[in-house]
Structure formats: C-alpha cells, structure tokens
C-alpha cells in the first residue's frame, strides 16, 4: 500500500516536471518572436536614423499602437481615467500614432506587479521604477530594456531634459530609465504648522538646531500639542534632518555623511550623530513632546499633522514640497535642515523605463520623448483634464488648484507618486507660485553635487546581508526612533553589534570598493 502511494507521488512529480517543461518550450518561441520583433524594430529604427538622426519618422500607415503606462498612487478611485486617456490620445495620435492605456498601481505593489507582469507575459510597456522598487533592483531583475540606442534614435527631447542626471540613469554605463526628477537637488527639511508657530511665538527658520526644536517642544507642550510623532518606524529618520547621501532606504549599505566633500562611505549607525539623535528623541519622549502611545497608535503623522495634534514632521525639502503639506484649516511652513544636494538617490527617486517584454519599444520611446517635449501633455498626464480635475488659479500664469473641482476629494485622477516630463514646462500646484520656476533653477544651481553622483551600489552579491540588516533595523530601530529606550547608549551598542553580525560593515566595504572603482581610483 505504502509503496504504491510513494510510487504514485513519484510518478506525479515526474509527470509534473515533464509537463512543466513542455509548457516552457511552448512559451519559448513566443519569447523569441518578441526578441525578433525587437530586433526588427531596432533595424527599422536604424533605417530611420539613416534618414534623419535624432528624429525618427513616425509610421502613420500602421494601426495605432496602444502603450500601457503606469501611474503610482495610493489606490485612489481615478474616476476620470478614461477622460484623461482620451485627452492624451488626442495629442499622441496625430503626433506619434499611438494611444495610451494608463494603469494606476498601488505604490506598495510596484515591485511585485511589475516583476510578476513581466514573468507572466502581461502587456507592459512603460513601467515606473524608483520609489519602493529601485532602478538597480529592476535592472538586476531584468525587467528593463537598455535605452541608449532608442534615445539616440528617437529621444532628443528626453536626452536634453535629463542631461544633468544622465549619469544617474545608467547602471554599468547603460541607460535603463529616465528620471522623473531632472532637477533633482533635494535636502532634508521640516514641515510645520505656521499658524500655530505664529500664535505661540515659535521662530522657525532654516537649519534650526536640535536645541531650538526642543525649546519649541516645551512651548507646544504647554498648549497641549505634540512636537512630532515617529511612531513604530524602522526608517532612518535622521536622514530627513541632514544632507546625507544615503545608500539603501535607511543607509543599510552605508552613507556619505559629507557627500560634497568626501567619498568615504560610513556606517551611520556607528556615528556619534546617530547616538545624539537617539538621545534627543529620548529627551523629547521623556519630556512628553511625543505621544505616549506613539508605538501602538497607527494613525499616521500626516494625519496627526492635518488634525493639528502634532506641530511638525520631517520631510524631504524641494521648492514645491510645501504643496504636499497644505491644509485648508491652517497655513503650513517648510524649513530646510541642510544644504541642497544633488545625489543619485534624488535623481532615481522616480523613473520611467521600458519593459523588457514591450512589443513596441520604439513607440514607448516616442511617447517618453513627447512627454519630455510637450508641456501640455506632461501637465495632462500629471494632473488630469483642466476644468475637470484642476482649474487655473486666477491671476497666475502656471499655477493650478484642485479646489472647487470634482477631483478635490482625490476621486478624479491622481498620480500621487508619479512625475512626468520637464518641470520647467509643466504647471505647478498652489500654494506654490509662478516664482517656482526661478526657485527650482536657483535651488539646483546652488546645490552641491555628491561625490558619488551617478553611482549606484550593486547589492546583487549581498542579498543575505541585505535581508539580515533589514530584519535587524525593523527590530531595533523603532524604539530608538521613538525615544522609548531606558539606556540610549546600550541600545545603540546593541544595534551596532547586531548590524555588524548581519554583515553591514562587509556590505559597506564592498560598496566603497565599487564606488572607488566607479570614481576610477
């Protein structure tokens, strides 16, 4: 009896393996077909290049190709999606003989949806990388098509707009995606409730010291408002209050502490600054500047800020970041905590690439190029249809608002995390003003460039360490962030030891080696 059961199982396994093998063979020709097609289109493109370099001709005799393109958000309802698509098609059909299929995607699903879509042979054309699915991960997963030839043939506007961040768009010398932040200077900052600051006489200014923030906490406590909330967070919150160049979301692969001056990669968790940051947070918690139930209360700091229960929160600082923190009930302010900095991280924060399985990479490049070239198209795909999803603010040239439109409740069209095209040709959202374009330019001109700009760490060799480090940070960082440890020094020492055991310092050494090689040392 048992023998029979075992032999049945074995037969089943064998048959399954054989059948699965068949399935694979059956799929293979389709893939080859796709490759051939790619080769053909590349040839066609080459032919076009011979005719006129940099501006490939559009074939209007064929049926228009539908390009699938992702927008990244938070599961908003996007009721106006079809209307936006229609409006986009009205521009793209006559210009590049293509239509679009805009696909909203929840930010948390970016990695899995993209990779599974590619593996499962779903129709995918222009994909978003960055945010929670980094360019280097996407390249090592094999989901992106190399773009250099296509850019040379069909992407003159895309090349021109992204020229300052071109180095960051490359992995091992090959361009894989185009930055949504061609003006990528960024720094750490603090968003605060300006109405409240004025009322309680708190002076908020750029590059405030921690002592000044602590003093603000004391004033706010008297008025029953918390200074901020860190919650159950395993992020490196210190990064928002500094001008670091961070490798990995929380510096798992190391950081450059003075990126414009030194290319020495350090372990931020072993730095004096980090321990001081944790001590500061403990003082804040012990003094009652942070909510007592911050670890278990899952209300986001954004929500508490909007409800005026907390006074401030750390955020990244750019000339239009204030738009994220506006609230109808009070005036918001934004201060910056460090010098503006051009880093690879800023440039690769959100990018558009072409799926390795796209049937028509040439059409995708045509659309990408058009988005960078045509400000109206960029505005449309960013903010939706005028009159429906936004209206122009009276007395301004390029400022829009969703107030008073059906889209004001996030139900119309939302690209919360996506950024398309050239910011200099796009509209801006109030309370940012027409001054924005000059601000953006001067902010970027003023910014210093990280020594590691253009370099991305290839963590392929360190998946084991990366997983172990991530687990350690999730376990030990939240209590330090929240200031809820009894002995900061002991807790930091414990964290350092655990990170070292997880292999963080080996990864950092490897990172330094790669960076030195990149810099040609």
């Amino acid at each position, binding site marked *: *009896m*048992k*023998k029979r*059961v075992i032999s049945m199982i074995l037969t*089943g*396994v064998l*048959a*399954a*393996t054989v*059948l*699965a*093998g068949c399935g*694979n063979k059956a799929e293979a020709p389709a893939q080859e077909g796709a490759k051939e097609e790619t080769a053909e289109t590349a040839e066609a493109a080459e032919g076009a290049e011979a005719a006129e370099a940099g501006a490939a001709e559009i074939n209007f005799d064929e049926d228009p190709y539908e390009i699938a393109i992702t927008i990244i958000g938070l599961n908003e309802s996007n009721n106006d999606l079809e209307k936006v698509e229609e409006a986009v098609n009205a521009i793209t059909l006559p210009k590049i003989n293509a239509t679009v299929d805009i696909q909203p995607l929840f930010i948390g699903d970016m*990695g*899995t949806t993209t*990779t*599974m879509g*590619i*593996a499962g042979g779903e129709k995918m054309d222009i994909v978003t990388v960055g945010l*929670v*699915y980094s360019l280097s*991960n996407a390249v*090592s*997963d*094999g*989901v992106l098509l190399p773009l250099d030839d296509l850019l040379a043939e069909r992407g003159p506007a895309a090349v021109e707009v992204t020229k300052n961040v071109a180095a960051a768009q490359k992995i091992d010398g090959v361009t894989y995606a185009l930055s949504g932040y061609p003006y990528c200077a960024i720094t750490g900052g603090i968003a605060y409730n300006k109405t409240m600051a004025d009322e309680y006489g708190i002076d908020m200014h750029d590059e405030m010291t921690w002592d000044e923030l602590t003093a603000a906490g004391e004033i706010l406590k008297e008025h029953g408002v918390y200074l901020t909330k860190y919650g*159950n967070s395993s992020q490196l919150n210190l990064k928002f209050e500094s001008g670091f160049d961070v490798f990995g*979301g929380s510096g798992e692969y190391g950081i450059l502490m003075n990126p414009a001056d030194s290319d020495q990669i350090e372990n931020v968790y072993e730095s004096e600054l980090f321990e001081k940051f944790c001590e500061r947070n403990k003082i804040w918690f012990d003094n009652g500047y942070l909510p*007592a*139930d911050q*670890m*278990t209360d*899952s209300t986001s700091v954004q929500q508490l800020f909007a409800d005026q229960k907390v006074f401030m929160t750390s955020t990244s600082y750019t000339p239009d970041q204030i738009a994220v923190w506006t609230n109808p009930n009070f005036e918001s302010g934004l201060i910056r905590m460090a010098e503006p900095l051009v880093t690879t991280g800023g440039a690769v924060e959100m990018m558009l690439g072409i799926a*390795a*399985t796209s049937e028509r990479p040439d059409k995708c490049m045509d659309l990408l190029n058009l988005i960078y070239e045509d400000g109206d198209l960029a505005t449309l795909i960013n903010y939706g249809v005028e009159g429906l999803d936004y209206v122009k603010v009276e007395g301004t040239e390029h400022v829009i608002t969703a107030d008073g439109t059906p889209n004001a409740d996030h139900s119309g069209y939302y690209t919360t995390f996506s950024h398309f095209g050239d910011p200099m040709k796009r509209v801006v959202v109030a309370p940012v003003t027409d001054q924005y374009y000059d601000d953006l330019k001067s902010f970027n001109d003023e910014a210093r460039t990280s020594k590691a700009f253009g370099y991305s760490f290839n963590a392929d060799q360190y*998946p*084991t*360490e*990366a*997983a*172990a480090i*991530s*687990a*350690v940070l*999730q*376990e*030990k*960082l*939240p*209590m330090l962030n929240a200031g*809820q440890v009894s002995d900061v020094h002991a807790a930091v020492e414990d964290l350092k030891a*655990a990170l070292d*055991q*997880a*292999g963080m310092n080996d990864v950092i050494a490897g990172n330094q080696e790669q960076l030195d090689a990149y810099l040609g040392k």
Partner: protein
Amino acid sequence: MAGKKNEKPEGGNKKSFGAAFLHWLPFYLMGAPGLIYIFINNYMPLAGLQIAFKNFNFAKGMWDSPWIGFKNFEFLFKSKDAFVMVRNTLAYNIAWIFIGMFVGVSAAILLNEVQNAVAKKFYQTAILLPYLMSMVVIAYLVYAYLSPSSGLFTKGIERLTGNTIQFYQEPRWWPFILTFVHEWRGIGFGMILYLSSLLGIDPGYYEAASLDGATKWQQIRLITIPLLKPTILMLLILNLGQVFRSDFGLFYQVPMMQAPLFPVTQTIDTYVYRALMQLNNVGMSAAASFIQSVVGFIFIVTANKIVSKLDENSALF
C-alpha cells in the same frame, strides 16, 4: 511497506488486466476531476521548488535563471535571531497542537451533550464565529483590552492594583496572550472534526453503558475517547506537518508589530516577511518555504512511523 499483514489480494492477479480496467473504469472517471485538480494544484507547482536554489531573474524565467546552490538559505541563519525564531515557531506550534487537541475534544464532548437542537446550533455558530474574523480585526479587539492608555483590561488592573502594565512592551505576557487568542479563535474550527466523529458513534454503546450503571464520566473515558482516538491521531499527524509554519496574522498583527515583543513573537514567517519586505527576493522567499515544507514533511513521516508502530490501524499511510 513490506511486512504489513493486512494487504488484501488484488483482483488483478486473477482477472485479466483489461477486464479489471473495464470494471474500475467508471470509478476512475468519477475520480478524474478531483485527481486532475490535485495534480494541477499540488503536483505541478513542485517544479517551482528549484527557485529556492536559483538566482531568480524575472526576465530569464524559472528554467533559465542560474543555479546558486544554498545561497538563498543563508539569510535565515545569518541573524542571531535564527535560534529565537525557530524556537518560537516550534514551541508555540507543538504546545498549541496539544492544547488545541485538549480544548477541541473537550468542547466537542460538551457540545455533544447539549440536547436542545436550537441551543446546539447556536453554541456551535457562536464558537465558530471568531474563526471567520480577520486577524487585523482581532488585533484591534485585543488592543481594546490591552492598550496602555485606554485598554479595558489595563485600566481594570490599574484600578485594582495601582500599577499600569505596559502589555505592548513586556514580552513575558505574550506567550499567554497569543495562546489565549489562538485558542479562542481556533476552538470552533478545531472541534468540528471531533464533533462529526462523535455524531458517528452508535448511541447503543451509551445506552448499554448507562444500563450497566456507568457514570457520564466513565462513558466519556471508556467509550467516547477510545472511539475518538483515530480522529485525534489523524489530526495530530496532519498538524505536525505544519509545525514549521506559523499563523502570520496572529504573530504579526496581534502584537501590533512591537519590536520589544520580538523575543516571543518572532517566528520564521514574520522574520521572512520583515527581512524580504524591501528586498522582494523571490529566491530567498522560496528557500524559506522550502525549508518549512521539508521539515513539515519529515515531521509527518516520522509521526506516522511512530503511530504505526504503536497502533497500525491509526496510521495515515
């Protein structure tokens, strides 16, 4: 296995193969949909086991990704938490198998004694209800009792003793809290199989026993439990196959992801989730699953072997 005595002689020896096949054909046809389903659902994915040993690349696919040996397994043991998570997973599961068995059998026997049909239905539904609740909802139910600022239980203790227990920061309470929540949620589902076995017991046994003057307790001890034994052993063996897996929702949601509680709430599944959440590495996730399956398989085979030594008829295979 060789040496098993109760193998029945098969018809195939005497009748010709063709005649036997024709005789069984309708049964094979009847079984076909189920077998095909099991084949597609349970056997075909076995080919995917190789992902655990590969540096999986989505563009290359499962078959063309390069082999990398056991590298995907390393992260599980790289951390010094490896011991803690394995200990937690095994200890909770093994304890709960026996607690669950005791609670489930007791509940089934008690419910079986309820004579009023309406009351019986009501109790059974009420006990089953928590099993249908999402873990997120349960997490907030628990939070309503244990919250440091407004918990019913926390505040009660504070009134009575003057002390506030910070449940979400003190690991020592959580083995009991988790066990309680697990049993409260699982008891309804856990007793269904026992209850159905009880319903299958011939009432004649009990009548005869009560005529001979057996007390209720004696009836339970000498009739019910021995007749339930095959069901108990079968569920025991099946449950042992799951000892390396944990109820992710219970260990992740109910303790509200609080780091100070990790020494008693970190299991293999929560560790894998935390380690790979940002990494999105399919190979390493597959490796963790692979180990869980292999250990589960070994446990099932071993448990079955032990059971078949003790009582051949109760073994599963």
